[in-house]
């Protein structure tokens, strides 16, 4: 499967930079998935979870509060205000989950969006 480049940038630095198969983004007009070769698009991102299908087949979830995404044919750039990557060993993961929930709850969006994102984070936490 074709790969594309994904960058996730926060004010505190780049938290993801690499080749991916697919990425699911929480757009403000609804969630959408991006594969390589997608049409050029700019969208705002809402509070939610970015799910990345990495090239080695593993999944990575990143909780974000808000931001923007620019999709190009071979490159996707997410510019977000705050993000927590849900990965690592068990102890690190549970800490990351807590941090992610904190981050989501502090976001200034509708309660439903936050609740949806929090439940999604919890679901990811269980599936690991």
């Amino acid at each position, binding site marked *: 499967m074709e790969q594309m480049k994904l*960058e996730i940038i926060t004010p*505190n630095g780049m938290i993801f930079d690499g080749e991916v198969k697919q990425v699911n983004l929480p757009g*403000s007009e609804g969630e959408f998935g991006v594969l390589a070769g997608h049409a050029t698009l700019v969208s705002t991102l809402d509070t939610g979870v970015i799910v990345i299908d990495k090239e080695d087949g593993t999944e990575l979830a990143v909780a974000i509060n808000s931001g923007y995404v620019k999709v190009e044919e071979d490159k996707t750039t997410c510019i977000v205000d705050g993000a927590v990557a849900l990965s690592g060993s068990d102890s690190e993961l549970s800490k990351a989950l807590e941090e992610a929930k904190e981050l989501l709850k502090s976001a200034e969006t509708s309660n439903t969006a936050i609740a949806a994102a929090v439940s999604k984070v919890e679901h990811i936490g269980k599936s690991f």
Partner: protein
Amino acid sequence: MANLKEIKRKIGSVKNTQKTTNAMKLVSSAKLKRTEELAKRSRVYAAKLTELLNEIARKMQQTNTNGIDNIYFREVDELQKVDIVFITADKGLCGGFNAQTIKRANHLIETFREKNVKVRLRAIGRKGIDYFKFNGIELNDEVIGLSSAPDFKKASEFISEVADSYANGDTDKIILIHNGYVNMITQEVREDQILPVDTPKLELNNVSTSELEVEPDDDDTLLNALVKRYIEYTMYYSLIDSLAAEHSARMQAMDAATKNAKEMVKTLQVKYNKARQESITTELIEIISGMESMK
């Protein structure tokens, strides 16, 4: 003899000062490293954000024949009111760092006053606030603590308020002055126009061939949100930049102070030795002449 003692005391005190300035220099250099790292990391974000803003603005300019019709991009024909935001340090002992920023701010105020433009000042950092208060110049905003510990949330809260007054029409232009970091030994006063967005600076002439789809399908909403983020980030980045410059300026000042103290100890030591020799000579003469008279 009293002179000898005094010189010795002086040497001790200068040496103490030297120790303090040297320690301050070390602290500043450590802090500078950390701030530099912070600046480096956030530079990527700033670059990407500007790129995105460029692209949207470019798209709007292409679809709109009379330029970008957005409040944040509208240049007024006749400037009447200007807001100047300037960043100084909370602490002194950093050479001419604060004085330079204040000088530039003063200069800018003069130029605007000559053109009959009303100027409002918003100060961040204790040193700038103290200066303008002492000179009886009114400040619209006084923020202490933000320049020594930049915080994205606080910075964006502050600049949002300023941006709101722009959107309300209370001000026509917002200018940000800060003393920026160039390298370890140089700082440079930077003047940025925050609002309206400086379109020539955005290099809108580069024609992009790609069709850009926008979601939500309303350029204005997206642009407004982007501009807001853009100015918030410019503010935050300026604070970091200013902090890095402050540390490098302090490092330099403390380095110079340490060197001066060293020099001073040297001259004092020479003086001390001379005084000691003198007193020995005097004593010798006294003894010899005493012996001579005994003969």
